[in-house]
């Protein structure tokens, strides 16, 4: 379902905590629908957005659906580049060990399982943002 062969670099920037507001959930819905358009997609997690990727989320106490398992499925939607801002992790006392493992299977490398998630500092993230055709910020 590519748009007349146009392939753009498209980055989704996730800035909000997973619960408390609906931005994270509805942003994920855009990513899943957008996968059908065969664009060069990446995701960035900054500010409280880094909480979206934390392990062992449990929403029993707030009566909301725990949608965090969907992030682990992003590899199946051809999402291979997930950037997490180092400064945002550090400011919240988090390390990469606190985050879910996120991988994709590389069809050009005998379907080897590879890491999608990369921690980058803010200046590198700024460079990556500058390379995009479209930045969708949620």
């Amino acid at each position, binding site marked *: 379902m590519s*748009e007349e062969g146009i392939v753009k670099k498209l980055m989704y920037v996730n800035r909000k905590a997973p619960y408390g507001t609906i931005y994270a959930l*509805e942003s994920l*819905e855009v990513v899943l*629908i957008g996968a059908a*358009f065969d664009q060069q997609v990446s995701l960035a997690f900054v500010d409280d957005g880094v909480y979206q990727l934390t392990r062992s989320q449990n929403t029993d106490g707030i009566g909301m659906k725990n949608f965090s398992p969907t992030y682990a499925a992003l590899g199946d939607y051809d999402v291979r580049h997930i950037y997490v801002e180092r400064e945002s992790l550090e400011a919240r006392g988090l390390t990469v060990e606190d985050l879910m493992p996120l991988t994709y299977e590389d069809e050009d490398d005998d379907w080897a399982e590879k890491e999608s998630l990369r921690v980058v500092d803010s200046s590198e993230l700024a460079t990556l943002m500058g390379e995009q055709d*479209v930045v*969708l910020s949620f």
Partner: protein
Amino acid sequence: MKFGILVNEGPYQHQASDSAYQFAQAALTAGHEIYRVFFYHDGVNNGTRLTVPPQDDRNVVDRWSELAEKHDLDLVLCVAAAQRRGLLDADEAQRHGKDADNIAPGFRISGLGQLIEAAIQSDRLVTFGD
């Protein structure tokens, strides 16, 4: 230039819709094209024809409808976001057994694919949100 516009907040509570409207108007006045305005998250609330703001205030919804009519703008409410928040056109209302619909003139309901398409087809996608 061809612009796509994404509006992520509802009317009045946030300035996002006002800013998006002013941007759209300025862009059109300057001779640019608006490929589509897509309303997402609480932004879908910009498309209800049941708002009744005080008479001495701007009418955010009517303003969008009028701009759409004048410039043949494509105003799209995300269907999933709209259904969550009680925004229904006549077809959706009937399908879900609801007794009313509330979409303002000039708006239509469609899927998130319309946002991605706007991002791809426009020279710039400009987001108005919180």
